[in-house]
């Protein structure tokens, strides 16, 4: 990881409150950026907002990295005003990353809203590794919004391997009408691959991750998810970003484990976890 200054080369309004921020930072990019890792960015200089915010890296090209973000609060609102040429304090790359599937496994990528960019990063990694057997399911509100999450171009568009990117919209204006997890289940029914030949990856809102994790458990699928919690520092010193260790739910394992390990730091042990390793239900996450 590197505490650095990233220079803005583009900060483009893509519509639907979604922006593409492209940052030049050779020092930060000396370390390989794996799919699912993130950077902490100071969204504005000064004391408000005080702490940096975590953003997943969608793509790296040369000494430039892309962050796709949605304006949701004060920090991202200020970030949307950042001008080309300005410098932003950055820290990264941080956190754990998605593990690539075995050669004979079909990778299923499930991304919802701001959970889409890490799936773009993963699809890129799969392609770079020569793993062509993947399908991405992209969940958004509307067809208009779908076009704003740039980066998820189908590399096989117009060829025999096309249609690897499947859309699900809440209003039915594009692709499957409904949730992205339902879209994938629908697809799986039509393409009945054996469960032990599937590898699931998910990133998106909590309800979506809960649905993925439940399915993975029921169908005994290997599954990794990327979770988001309120984060302060990104490096494990503020201890604010925790998620519950699934072992703590098992009375026997809980008795044997150190109480220190009940809450896991998302910035260090995550953000990518095996779906069965963390507790997503029960209301401790918001």
């Amino acid at each position, binding site marked *: 990881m590197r505490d650095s200054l990233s220079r803005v080369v583009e900060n483009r309004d893509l519509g639907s409150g979604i922006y593409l921020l492209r940052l030049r930072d050779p020092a930060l990019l000396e370390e390989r950026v794996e799919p699912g890792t993130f950077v902490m960015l*100071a969204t504005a200089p000064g*004391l408000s907002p*005080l702490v*940096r915010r975590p953003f997943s890296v969608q793509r790296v090209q040369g000494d430039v990295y892309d962050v796709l973000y949605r304006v949701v609060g004060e920090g991202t609102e200020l970030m949307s005003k950042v001008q080309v040429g300005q410098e932003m304090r950055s820290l990264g790359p941080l956190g754990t990353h998605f593990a690539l599937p075995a050669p004979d496994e079909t990778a299923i990528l499930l991304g919802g809203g701001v959970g889409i960019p890490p799936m773009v990063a993963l699809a890129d990694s799969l392609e770079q590794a020569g793993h062509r057997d993947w399908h991405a399911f992209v969940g958004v509100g509307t067809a208009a919004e779908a076009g704003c999450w740039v980066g998820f171009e189908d590399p096989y568009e117009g060829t025999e391997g096309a249609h690897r990117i499947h859309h699900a919209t809440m209003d039915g204006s594009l692709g499957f009408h409904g949730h992205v997890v339902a879209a994938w289940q629908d697809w799986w029914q039509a393409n009945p691959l054996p469960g032990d030949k599937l590898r699931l990856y998910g990133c998106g809102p909590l309800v979506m991750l809960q649905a993925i994790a439940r399915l993975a458990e029921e169908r005994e699928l290997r599954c990794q998810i990327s979770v988001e*919690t309120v984060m302060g520092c990104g490096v494990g*010193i*503020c201890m*604010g970003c925790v998620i519950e260790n699934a072992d703590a739910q098992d009375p026997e394992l809980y008795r044997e484990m150190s109480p220190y390990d009940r809450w896991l730091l998302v910035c260090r042990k995550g953000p990518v976890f095996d779906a069965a390793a963390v507790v997503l239900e029960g209301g*401790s*996450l918001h």
Partner: protein
Amino acid sequence: MSRPESSSKLIAPEDVDLGVEVGGVAMDNPVMLASGTAGYGPELADVLDLGVLGGFVTKGIATYPWEGNAPPRIAETQAGMLNAIGLQNVGLDSFLTDKVPFLQELRARGVKVVVNIIGKTVEEYHEVARGLRGCDAVDALELNISCPNIKEGGIAFGTEPCAAGEVTAATVEGSDKPVWVKLSPNVADIASMGVACEKAGATGLSVINTLLGMAIDLETRRPLLSIGAGGLSGPAIKPVALRMVWQVSQACSIPVIGIGGIWNAKDALEFMVCGASAIQIGTANFVNPNTALEVVEGMRQWCAERGVSRIVDLVGTLDRS
């Protein structure tokens, strides 16, 4: 205006003596990282050269591991943040086995190591102090009697002079090292707390811990922190901290360590002028992990430019004439 500690002679920044002696610990410079804002050391080592520090204060250590609070544990506020971590810590045994080797290396580089200790009873504080006896990686203990997040016990030690004195005495009795006490600002008279700890054998006073605060979500009408309230830190609390450092340093004869929203060298120097012999950087580590480095260099520069050859000459020089 000319100050007694200043000379018109130009001083090179590298010739400024930043050395301080704080409650039985001699440090190369007055800058420390505050407990709970820098882990046990390795967490920050990738982005900050810890060798620049005068001292390092560990995350609080209890006799046994604590799990801490459920999330959400932090919330941002104007120029500050609230936390309710709940003192999640690895416990004494794991600290001695897993954390001490790194701290030993740090100490070998000239950084003084202070272990923050926590407990829910007087006996637990005493027990941790005893457990650290003979540990040559540790220069001093800092007693956390003020962390406001623990429902059982903790808050009482920090708010009653008698209880603070009792727990300080028990720790001093159990320890072979200097004992500092970190005071809570959530009291009517912080000076009397300092006096009680000094009488009980403390050699230094860390001032201040976080201020109890709260933040809510208006739409859901729920608190932003899982346990409701939490400790406020960051630049928002600096004026309160400065006032308390001044009050405690006036009332006590042992050194005061200034803490509270220090963001840069100017902030740090203000604390020293108000009576702090050294300072700790806390929340700033989350925002800019290189704050400590910038503070050390900035102090040196400021002193050089004003002809202050020894930083100790600044301590307690607030002019109230």
